[in-house]
């Protein structure tokens, strides 16, 4: 079996590093990334190589047989998410190593939490049964809450507490749904559910609980209230990790489960409702982002808006033609990956701009384009992708979603994509407008370390590049999926 050593390593290694980093002296914790990152990158690439050569497969952990053993699914979607996580998390770690020098107390706890977060995420991408997904969600969620609290100011603690309560409520709703499904069908595995699940009251109640729980964790409008303070108030590398990756975990579960249960079980009405909530998120999030005065709050509300696009997936794959469903799958995943890269870049470059002017206020960015062109350039590239303008991953995603919406005859989603794009342009250009303004002459700005700028630029550039070279990634992501074979 290919990738034998690397599949379990993807979560065993971060777990081990997490524990190890708790044992070593704080000064050594940051340095562990020089061991951890190369190994994780190697493991991720090995898994990709396995996928490319041998196709999607199921890996049995310790060769135990399910249900007591744990099955891991290594298909295109999982590998895609793993690679995305490795890229974003590695770069954020490099950023954090420099950034956290000014925050020594936070620094010593950031590193263990990062590894646990990473383990939780990789656990989610690989899990094949709905209970291990729960465990992954919890590991990731608790680590994320800890990261939000790192700043230790009252605002940060309140944000962390609110996030924790939302996350716990969400997990319990999900867990109860899992319990009902197990009670009804006696199986936890996706494959088992796919065969056994029928449309009855128990399934519908379980599905409703699971959806509610996951929506709360994904922060879909109108359950998003916890997100802006948590993402906007955290330390910059933490914001990037949370906005780019963590919210995708619960969405990923919902997406998989939706396809596994299939059109007999998943009601079209719910699908449309999810789409409508997504549309609400796009409009409300965009509007709120435009109204913000703090740069990072603006970026956080932009996440609320961008999550909305992902939920157009459900109406576009439910009871539509195979071609439309394939396009929706491609478009949603492109959107997901592009958002991860662009949002991480946006948060990191926003952090750089804040470091440069020493203030989180957007209005203090007057004339900054003269002093920090590189930070602003990264911000701009990431913004291009978020606005869905070409050439970028966001554009390619929008193109695919538009295509799918027209093909499935659901023209009303076109309006969402149309207005959503203009709204995001409004809030991105709000920042630019300020930066180009020649105001009271600030003749100096603090120069942040070069690493910070370079990391943000690399992420932003990859958000652009992935749009131009989307063919191969989308081909991989389709491997082993229930859609996209047509």
């Amino acid at each position, binding site marked *: 079996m290919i990738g034998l050593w690397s599949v379990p390593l993807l979560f065993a290694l971060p777990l081990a590093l997490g524990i190890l980093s708790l044992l070593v002296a704080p000064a050594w914790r940051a340095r562990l990334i020089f061991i951890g990152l190369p190994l994780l990158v190697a493991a991720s690439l090995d898994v990709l190589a396995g996928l490319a050569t041998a196709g999607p497969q199921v890996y049995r952990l310790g060769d135990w047989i399910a*249900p*007591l053993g744990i099955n891991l699914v290594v298909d295109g979607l999982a590998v895609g998410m793993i690679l995305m996580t490795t890229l974003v998390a590695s770069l954020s770690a490099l950023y954090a190593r420099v950034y956290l020098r000014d925050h020594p107390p936070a620094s010593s706890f950031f590193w263990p939490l990062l590894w646990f977060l990473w383990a939780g995420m990789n656990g989610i991408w690989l899990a094949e049964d709905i*209970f291990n997904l*729960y*465990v992954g969600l*919890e590991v990731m969620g*608790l680590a994320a*809450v*800890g990261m939000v*609290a790192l700043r*230790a*100011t*009252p605002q940060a*603690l*309140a944000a*962390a*507490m*609110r996030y*924790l*309560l939302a996350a*716990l*409520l969400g*997990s*319990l709703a999900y*867990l*109860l749904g*899992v*319990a*009902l499904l*197990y*009670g*009804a069908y*006696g199986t*936890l595995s996706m494959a088992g559910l796919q065969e056994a699940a029928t449309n009855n009251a128990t399934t519908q109640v379980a599905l409703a609980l699971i959806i509610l729980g996951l929506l709360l964790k994904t922060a879909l409008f109108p359950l998003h*209230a916890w997100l802006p*303070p948590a993402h906007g108030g955290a330390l910059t590398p933490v914001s990037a990790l949370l906005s780019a990756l963590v919210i995708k975990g619960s969405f990923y579960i919902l997406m998989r489960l939706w396809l596994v249960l299939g059109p007999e079980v998943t009601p079209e009405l719910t699908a449309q409702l999810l789409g409508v909530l997504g549309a609400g998120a796009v409009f409300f999030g965009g509007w709120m982002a435009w109204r913000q005065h703090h740069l990072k709050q603006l970026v956080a509300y932009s996440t609320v808006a961008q999550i909305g696009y992902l939920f157009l997936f459900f109406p576009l794959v439910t009871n539509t033609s195979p071609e439309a469903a394939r396009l929706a799958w491609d478009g949603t995943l492109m959107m997901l990956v592009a958002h991860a890269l662009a949002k991480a870049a946006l948060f990191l470059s926003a952090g750089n701009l804040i470091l440069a002017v020493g203030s989180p206020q957007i209005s203090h960015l007057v004339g900054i384009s003269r002093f920090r062109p590189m930070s602003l350039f990264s911000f701009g590239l990431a913004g291009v992708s978020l606005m869905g303008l070409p050439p970028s991953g966001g554009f390619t995603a929008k193109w695919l979603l538009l295509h799918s919406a027209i093909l499935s005859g659901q023209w009303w989603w076109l309006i969402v994509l149309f207005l959503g794009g203009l709204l995001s342009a409004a809030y991105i250009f709000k920042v630019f407008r300020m930066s180009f303004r020649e105001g009271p002459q600030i003749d100096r700005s603090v120069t942040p370390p070069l690493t910070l700028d370079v990391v943000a630029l690399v992420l932003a550039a990859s958000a652009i590049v992935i749009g131009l070279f989307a063919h191969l990634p989308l081909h991989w992501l389709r491997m082993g999926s229930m859609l996209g074979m047509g």
Partner: protein
Amino acid sequence: MSGAISGYMVFAWSGVLLFGLGLFGFIAHRHLLRRLLAFNIMGSGAFLVLVGLAQDGRGVDPVPHAMVITGIVVAVASTALALVVFRRWYRASGRTDLPEDT
């Protein structure tokens, strides 16, 4: 599924009841400790449903037990984290509840 409130199903239904009670407490209360307790009650409810439903005449099924044990570990960890954050929040702000939506 005949006789919903008879035999083994009594556990599952109590679980649902507990979950509902906990949910009510979670939403109704503002004091963070009470909300935390309510969360734990919800958790116990969910575990009870897991174990209760699994006794559906299939003989002894070890899987739900494994799950519940894992679930309890997770719940303990969550509670511990919540307590830490709560304590620091209390020290920093002197409040036992969250400032309402800003």
